[in-house]
């Protein structure tokens, strides 16, 4: 009987202590745990005292002590969890960090805007099966002019203010010299090439730089038509200037294409109604194009009766100026970081 009384008394004390500990937000929790559940704790004390009971009472008493122990463990665990939670909350609320501070960023680098346009152009055409072809920037007159049906003393040379290295060697005035190299250096057959690169003209003012970049596309096969030229250019124009872009193709003159044309796209800013960007015309000139002139095939030894083709070229600088709203071509080569960091 004494033992049962002890059990009841212990339970009463335990509950009172637990309540007090809870009220004190877990203070003295560790002591409480040792006091009741420790190896030398009171609950084990009861267990140890069980030997003095008659054998038939032991199972009942043992079960009652176990219930009490479970109760103590459960309540103490709950108190422990609460205390841990409280400690975390306290730690979190102790932070003084100002989350409106700017992030600690690394200084990032930037690619040149012309590289962005150039790589985008290459990827676009590569996706359609065009190979990249390159040619010299300093080239023989033959490849820059003669093979392209521009003989010496031809007025078309007035369209190219040419830098000369010597009498027969020029800074290429257009990427079209790649056409001539490619056709001379390959056996006749289907051609789909893309030639980006720097070109040079004796010109330097607000809208002309002595060096600028062009991309040239050349397609040759047995049944390539002017309609294919228009279809391909339209895809490109939509890629660069957005879906719904319209093309205006007007006759022009390049000795190495016939028919030859200049290409305008509907103004990307006003959509064609007229604005400052397009000088109220609704159109922006972006490049030149045409069907390969049979004279070019003849010059490079391909059969002009069998092969037809088209070529078109545009200025990477021009596209970049339009796309990024850069007001002055001179900014492109001044290499000021306050410019370069914007791209």
């Amino acid at each position: 009987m004494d033992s049962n009384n002890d059990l009841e008394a212990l339970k009463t004390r335990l509950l009172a202590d637990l309540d007090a500990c809870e009220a004190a937000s877990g203070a003295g929790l560790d002591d409480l745990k040792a006091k009741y559940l420790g190896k030398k704790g009171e609950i084990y004390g009861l267990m140890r005292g069980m030997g003095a009971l008659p054998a038939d009472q032991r199972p009942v008493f043992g079960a009652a002590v176990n219930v009490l122990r479970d109760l103590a463990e459960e309540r103490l665990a709950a108190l422990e969890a609460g205390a841990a939670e409280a400690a975390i909350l306290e730690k979190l609320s102790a932070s003084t960090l100002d989350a409106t501070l700017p992030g600690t960023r690394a200084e990032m680098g930037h690619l040149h805007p012309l590289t962005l346009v150039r790589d985008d152009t290459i990827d676009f055409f590569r996706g359609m099966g065009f190979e990249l072809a390159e040619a010299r920037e300093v080239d023989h007159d033959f490849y820059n002019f003669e093979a392209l049906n521009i003989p010496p003393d031809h007025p078309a040379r007035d369209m190219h203010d040419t830098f000369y290295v010597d009498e027969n060697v020029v800074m290429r005035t257009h990427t079209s010299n790649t056409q001539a190299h490619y056709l001379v250096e390959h056996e006749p057959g289907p051609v789909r090439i893309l030639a980006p690169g720097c070109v040079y003209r004796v010109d330097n003012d607000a809208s002309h730089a002595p060096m600028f970049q062009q991309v040239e596309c050349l397609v040759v096969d047995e049944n390539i038509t002017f309609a294919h030229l228009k279809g391909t250019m339209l895809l490109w124009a939509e890629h660069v200037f957005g879906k719904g872009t319209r093309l205006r193709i007007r006759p022009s003159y390049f000795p190495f294409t016939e028919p030859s044309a200049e290409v305008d796209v509907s103004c990307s800013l006003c959509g064609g109604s007229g604005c400052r960007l397009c000088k109220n015309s609704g159109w922006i000139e972006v490049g030149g194009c045409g069907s390969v002139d049979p004279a070019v095939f003849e010059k490079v030894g391909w059969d002009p009766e069998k092969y037809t083709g088209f070529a078109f070229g545009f200025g990477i600088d021009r596209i970049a100026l339009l796309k990024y709203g850069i007001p002055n071509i001179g900014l492109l080569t001044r290499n000021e970081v306050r410019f370069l960091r914007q791209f």
Partner: protein
Amino acid sequence: MLISLNWLKRYVDLTESAEDISYALTALGFEVESLENRGAGLDGVVVGEVKTCAKHPEADKLSVCTVFDGVETVPVVCGAPNVAAGQKVLFARVGAVLPARNGNEEFKIKKAKLRGQDSFGMICAEDELGLGESHDGILVLGADAVPGTALADVPGLADTLFEISVTPNRPDALGHLGVARELAARFDRPLRAPASHLQAALAESGTKAADLVSLTVEDAAGCPRYTGRVITGVRVGPSPDWLVHLLKSAGKKSINNVVDLTNFALLEWGQPSHAFDLDALAGKTVVVRKARSGEKLKTLDGVERALEPADFVIADAAAPQVLAGVMGGEASGVSAATKNIFLEVAYFDPRAVRAQARRHGLSSDSSYRFERGVDPLATARVSDYLAALIAAVCGGTVAPGRVEFTAPSHPAAPREVSLRPARASRVLGVPLDADRIEGLLAGLEVKALRREPVEVGGVDYPAIRFAIPGFRGDLEREVDLIEEVARRLDYNTLPAVLPLFPLKPVELPPGEAQARAIRATLRDLGLNEALSLRFTSRKALAALNLAEGDPRHRDFVPLLNPLSEEWELLPTTPLPALLQALERNQNTQEQDVRLFEIGRAFHKRPRTDARDSGVREEPVLGIALMGEWKESSWSGQKQSVDFPRLKGVVENLLERLRIEVEWAPGSSAGFLHPVESADLKTASGELAGVLGTLHPKTQAAYGLKLPVVVAEIYPEVLLRAPRRELKFKPFASHSGSTRDVNVVVAESVRHADILDSLPAKVENLVESRLNSVYRGKGVPEGHKALHYTFTYRHAERTLTDDEVNGAHETVRAALLKNPDIQIK
């Protein structure tokens, strides 16, 4: 080429708006660069009659006039010196708005008092109305002008002007008639050719031309066709209003009636001509010949030109009078005293004219047209037309006949060209039949002669034979006609179709792929990509402080016609441009500038074949860092750029490219610090680049104040270097044990020397890492302390302390064996 709408209307009825005509011109291939409506919007400006004109009582330079404007007579104060009673003038009524000009805003006429005198309107000068540039005084109209007539209704004053660009293949559009022909075809209207109604008026009488002047053509190559006419008894004087107005619209000043008419014919037909004072021609002789050495000619622009034997001239019995096809001479030109005229209309060889225009640096309206090719079949027609016109306008008598010359090679009849409709369809991608094609070309006066098969490559194809009018020298081949068909259809109406191709994988060429990797890596490392003009100068190269024999100033490529001295050469290295860019950034107070550029180096080399450029071109990567490298965006942590920073950038780049290089400290490149620099070599010993701190001399020569480090790397060499394969290597699952060592050495002992002191292989040593280099307290002057961590690890098991200590003892012993090294 300035095209006047009034002028076009002489040949074709045009009712379209200026904008529609402008659109049509552009769609036809004559891009309209600007459009000007002269006299538009000047509603309150009318013809006025100056009734009275007296000096202003209180101002010397002003006159007080009364002007009748068709309704009332009002007082007007006028400042023009040429105002006089009786004149018909352009009068702006009160309320009229004059156009903005010369940066001034538009200007509304109000009632005013000028020095006490009422002024109810303004008598206008040409420029005040936007009718021209002249401000020589008020514009005085012909006496037949009726007061009150609106400006827009005064013949010839108001006009629409199109500035069109004419491509070199279309000299026919360098005259109004040619442009009118294009518009007539586009709008499907008849064209009124000027010759048809004026040729009938040619009345010849008196002595035959051949008896008045003799013609010899010695240079038939330069001058395959020449005609001369004589007009006697002309009265040289001012031109009639219609002529003045038309020339003014086309941007030409009136000189005298004879010269104006030759200019009129030039701007009408695109055919230059020249009027000589016949009495100024020695021996009444005209000789077309090569110039002789020592001969001189003072041309109409007042320049005395030394002629060369390559030039060809029109001479009289004594001396050259005209640089053929380019410009006339002063001595034999038409003057007020001229009575008798020799009128030249010729076809000069395009190349010959172009060559001599270029030789003399002189491009004229005349040479511009001859070098593009005038109509070889129209010479006599224009001669007759212009002679009749001169006689009609200037008086005088046209002597019967022409003196003329025709080279045997000169064409006498239109060229014929065949066109296969099937070929046109194949080139353009639209079905076209013969009838359609004939109809389209007829509008351009390209006449179908007959249908007859043409043989190409041994096969007969159905074709149409066309006669090409003389003014279309550009139509020589079938494809030229196909282009005309497309132009007549309008390029914008042709279909847009995508070509079909077999599938084909396309890789980037290795050089391009590597360039992309270089750009992306350097960008990721925080560098900005530069792009420089590829020009440099001897001065900029010299400023690099290059050693004797440095390839950067050997075999460089100068331009024959550079834009300026600073752009006289092609670059041999991207560094000068990058250093100049650093300086520009320094000028805008940038403290942290990190640039790279894949530039291009150009060097002369022997030609490999007749069509080789003789120039080697290769990409060169330049890196230039200047100032304080900011570690983060705002914390203020930053570090001056130095060799290790640059080396780290290059090491990161090579890591990304998976290329191993040898670092040889101390580069011989003259623009680098001799100690704080290194050469990069690939496994095969090729020089792959140089890098280091900028030499103080170079730094000073480029005016750079902040610390600068630069690198030059050769992508083509890297492309040849072996690349580490991407392959998994197993790694130990445990971390191993570390032991730290502090060594103290003299400044002259290098990190590499310390590592070289270790045996080639130490059991279980897997890493020797440098943690820090320290100078200062506790380290003797002239010495440095290096802190190393050595890591020992076995691939399969944990090492015992004894094993680790044993291995580390080997390391320590090896370090201590080096007399230069102390261990602390």
